[in-house]
C-alpha cells in the first residue's frame, strides 16, 4: 500500500515539475509578445515628419525654376510675416476642432475685429489700445453666443457658426458703411510688421509664441488631455467627471478670441481694414488645421502641425506666384489641400487601431 502511494506521490511531483516548466515557457512567450509587433519605426517617422520633408521638396522643386527668388531669405522673411495672421486664425480653429465642434465663424470674427479696430481708432478717435481691447471683447462675445446656441439649444455647431458668421459679415458691412477704412495708428503697424527680429516682422514671432503656448496646453496640461477626451468620446469624458459643456464653451470662446487677435494683426499689417478680404482666410485656416493634424502628432489637431501646414501652403502659393501663375491657383491649392489633408488624416485614424 505505502509503495503505491509513494509512487503516485512521485508521479504527481514529476507532473508538477513539468507543469511549472511549461508555465515558465508560457511566461517567456508572453514576455516576447508583450511589446506587440508594433509598426515599423520608419513608417512612424515618415508620418510625423512627412510634411516637413514635403515642404523642403516643394522649395527645391519650385527653386529649380526660380532659384533667385525661391532661395532668397527675403522672400521667406516677408512670407513668414504676411501669413502670420493665418497661423493665429488656424490656432484658434484647432481648439474647438479638438473638442469636436466646428467653428465656421472664425474668419468673420477676424473681419469684425479688424474692422472694429479701424472704425474705433480712425472714425471714433479711440486710442489704439482701447480699440484693440474692444475688438478682443467682441471676439469673446461671439464665442459666448456660439456656445449658447450650440450647448443650450443643442444645435449642431456647423449650423450655428455658419449663421453667426454670416450675421457678423452683415455687421461688418454695417459698421464700415461697406468702405475701406485706412489711417490706423502707426503704433499698431510698428509693433506688428515694421519692427523686425532676425529680419522677420514681429507678427511672425507672435504666431510662434502662440503656437508654443497652445502646444504646451495640449501636450503638457491636464486641461489639454481633457479637451481631447471631450472631442473623442464625449460620454466617456462626462462619465469620467469632466465638465463637457464647460470645456466645449471654453473652446468656442477661445477660438473666437484668438480669431479676433488675428483680426488685430491683420489690421496692423496693412494700417487699414476692408470689410471682406479677411473672409477669404476661412478655407486656408481649415486646410491648414487638417493638414497640420497629419503631421508631428499625427491623428491629432496640433499647434506645431498647424504652424508648419500654414507655411507649407503659403510657400506653395508664393512659388506659384513667382512662376507667374494666375491667382486662381490659390483656390485650387487651398481647396485641394483641404480635401487631401482630410483624406490623409482619415487614413491615419483608420490605420492606427489596426496596427
Amino acid at each position, binding site marked *: 500500500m505505502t509503495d503505491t502511494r509513494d509512487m503516485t506521490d512521485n508521479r504527481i511531483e514529476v507532473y508538477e515539475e513539468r507543469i511549472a516548466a511549461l508555465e515558465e515557457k508560457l511566461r517567456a512567450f508572453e514576455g516576447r*509578445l508583450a511589446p506587440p509587433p508594433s509598426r515599423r519605426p520608419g513608417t512612424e517617422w515618415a508620418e510625423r515628419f512627412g510634411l516637413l520633408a514635403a515642404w523642403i521638396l516643394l522649395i527645391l522643386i519650385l527653386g529649380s525654376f526660380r532659384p533667385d527668388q525661391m532661395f532668397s531669405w527675403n522672400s521667406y522673411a516677408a512670407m513668414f510675416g504676411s501669413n502670420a495672421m493665418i497661423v493665429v486664425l488656424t490656432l484658434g480653429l484647432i481648439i474647438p476642432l479638438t473638442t469636436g465642434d466646428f467653428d465656421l465663424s472664425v474668419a468673420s470674427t477676424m473681419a469684425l475685429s479688424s474692422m472694429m479696430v479701424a472704425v474705433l481708432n480712425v472714425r471714433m478717435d479711440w486710442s489704439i489700445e482701447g480699440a484693440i481691447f474692444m475688438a478682443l471683447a467682441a471676439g469673446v462675445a461671439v464665442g459666448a453666443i456660439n456656445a449658447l446656441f450650440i450647448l443650450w439649444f443643442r444645435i449642431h455647431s456647423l449650423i450655428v457658426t455658419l449663421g453667426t458668421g454670416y450675421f457678423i459679415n452683415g455687421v461688418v458691412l454695417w459698421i464700415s458703411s461697406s468702405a475701406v477704412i485706412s489711417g490706423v495708428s502707426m503704433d499698431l503697424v510698428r509693433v506688428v510688421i515694421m519692427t523686425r527680429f532676425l529680419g522677420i516682422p514681429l507678427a511672425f514671432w507672435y504666431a510662434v509664441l502662440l503656437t508654443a503656448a497652445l502646444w504646451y496646453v495640449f501636450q503638457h496640461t*491636464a486641461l489639454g*488631455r481633457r479637451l*481631447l*477626451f471631450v472631442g473623442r*468620446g464625449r460620454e466617456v469624458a*462626462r462619465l*469620467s467627471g469632466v465638465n463637457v459643456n464647460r470645456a466645449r464653451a471654453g473652446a468656442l470662446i477661445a477660438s473666437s478670441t484668438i480669431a479676433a487677435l488675428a483680426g488685430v494683426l491683420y489690421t496692423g499689417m496693412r494700417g487699414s481694414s476692408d470689410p471682406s478680404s479677411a473672409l477669404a482666410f476661412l478655407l486656408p485656416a481649415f486646410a491648414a488645421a487638417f493638414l497640420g493634424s497629419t503631421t508631428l502628432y499625427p491623428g491629432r489637431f496640433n499647434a506645431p502641425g498647424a504652424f508648419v501646414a500654414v507655411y507649407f501652403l503659403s510657400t506653395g502659393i508664393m512659388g506659384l506666384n513667382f512662376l507667374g501663375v494666375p491667382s486662381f491657383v490659390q483656390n485650387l491649392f487651398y481647396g485641394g489641400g483641404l480635401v487631401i489633408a482630410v483624406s490623409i488624416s482619415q487614413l491615419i485614424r483608420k490605420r492606427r*487601431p489596426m*496596427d
Partner: protein
Amino acid sequence: MTDAPALSVTNLSKRFGGALALDHVALEVRRGEVHGLLGSNGSGKSTLIKILAGFHDPEPGGEVRLYGRKVPLPVPGARVREMGLAFVHQHLGLIPSLTVMENLALGDLATTHNWGISWRAEEARAAEVFARYDLALDPRREVFTLSPVEQALLAIVRAVEDLRTASKEPGVLVLDEPTPFLPRAGVEQLFRLVRAAKDEGASVIFVSHDVDEVREITDRATILRDGKLIDTVVTADTSHDAFVERIIGRAMTAYGGAGKARPNAEPLAEVVELTGPGLGPVSLEVAEGEILGLTGLIGAGYDAVPALLYGARNATGGRLRLAGQSIRLDTMEPPEALARGIVYLPADRMGAAGVGSLPVSDNIGLPVLERLRRAAGLFDRDIRQHAGSLGARAGVKPNAPELPLSALSGGNAQKALLAKWLQVEPRLMLLDEPTQGVDVGARQDIWDALDGAAEGGAAILIGSTDYEQLAQLCHRVLVFARGRIVEELTGERLDKDAIAEACFRSTTLTAAAE
C-alpha cells in the same frame, strides 16, 4: 400540401468557433397557432431567430420549410417575406420622425418604384387597416409622438399587412421579445392584436423570457436550453413550474450553493426610494467589503440602477446615504459622485467607458492627471509609466500603454478600464455587465480584481444577467421584476440555477405581491 405546417424547421445547427450554439433543433409551427419560444440567455433562442431572419448561415443538413415549400439556406432575408415569414424585433424598425402612414408604407416605398404616391389613398388605406384591427391610431401622427405600446402595435400591424400583401399564404409572424418594456395594459392590447392576426389564419412565434405571458397567449411552446431542443409542450397542459424546470433544466428543489459569507460590516451605502424611468421605488443597502449583484429579466429595471446612482442618467427621485451624508439622486452628476468616492464602469466599453482611438495610457490616466503632473507640466512618459505599472498589476496583455485602447481584446481593455477606476480607491463601485464580451481568463482576472477591491473595503454593486458570474462573485443578489426588488438571494441559496429560477419566477412573484 394544404395540411403542411406553417413553418417546419428540422435538424438546424449553428456553430460559433468551437461551440454549438444550436444543436440539431427542430421546430414546428401549425397554421393559425401562437407558438411560444422560451429559453434563458445562451439557450440558442436568438440564434434560431437570427437564422430564420437570414443573419446567420446554418450548418449544412438543416431544413426550413414554409407551408411545405423548402426555403433556401441561408435564408434570403429580403425574399422570405413573399414565402410567408415576417419579423418584429425588439428594435421595432420604425422611423420616429416619419408619420404613422409613411411608416406603414415603408416596405413598399423602399422596394418599389412608384412615381405617383397618393398620400390621400395611403391615408385611407391606413385608416382602413387600423379599423380592421380595432386600433385608434392617427395615420398623420409622427411616430415619435406615439407611446411605446402604440409603436409596438404599429410595427406588428405593419408586419401582418406586409405578409398579407406579399404572400399568398396566411403567413408566420415572429415577435422577438416584444413585451419587456411595455406596461401591463399595453401587453393586453398587444395580445388582442396577436389574437386578431391569428383569427385571420396567421401563425405567430412569440419569443419571450416571460413564462406568464407565454402561458397566457400561446397554444404550444418550445423550450431551448444550451442550444438543444428540450421540449415542445401544449401550453394548457403545462404548469408554470413545469416551464421553469424545463428552462433552467432541473427540478425546483433545495440547492447546495457555495455563496460567500456576507461580511458583517455596517452598511456603507444606503439607497432610499430610488425611482427612474421604469424603475422603483427601490431601496437597498450595501456594506463595506460586500459585492452585491443586481439582476432580473430584460426590462426588469435592475440595469438602470448603477447609472442612476452615479448620475450618468437622471433619476426622478431618491436619496443615497453614503458615509453619514444623504445625497439627492435626481440632481446627482458624475463629478459630484466622483468627489464622494463613487465610480461607475458602464457596459458600453468603447462608447462610454473608454475611447478606442486614444492610447491605453491616456484612458487609464484620465481621472488622475492632476496627480501625475510635475512642476513643468504633464508628460506622456509619466502617464505611460503610471499606466504601465497599473496594467502590469491588472494583467493587461499586451501591457503596452502607448497602444490605442481599441487594439486590446475586449477582456484586456476591460482590465485596463477597471484599473482606471481602482486607482482612485473608490468607496462605492458601480459596474454594468463587467465581463460582457470578455474571454474566460480575463474574466477570472476581473473577478479577482473586484474581490481584492472588496477586501480593501470598497462596496461593489454589479448589474448583470450572467447568473454564473453573479453566483461566483457576489455575497448577495437582488432579483428585480417590473422595476422592483422581488427576491434576495444569499449564502446557500445563491447559485446559478437559483438566480435563474428566481428571475423566471419573478413575474409571478410581483403578480402575487400586487
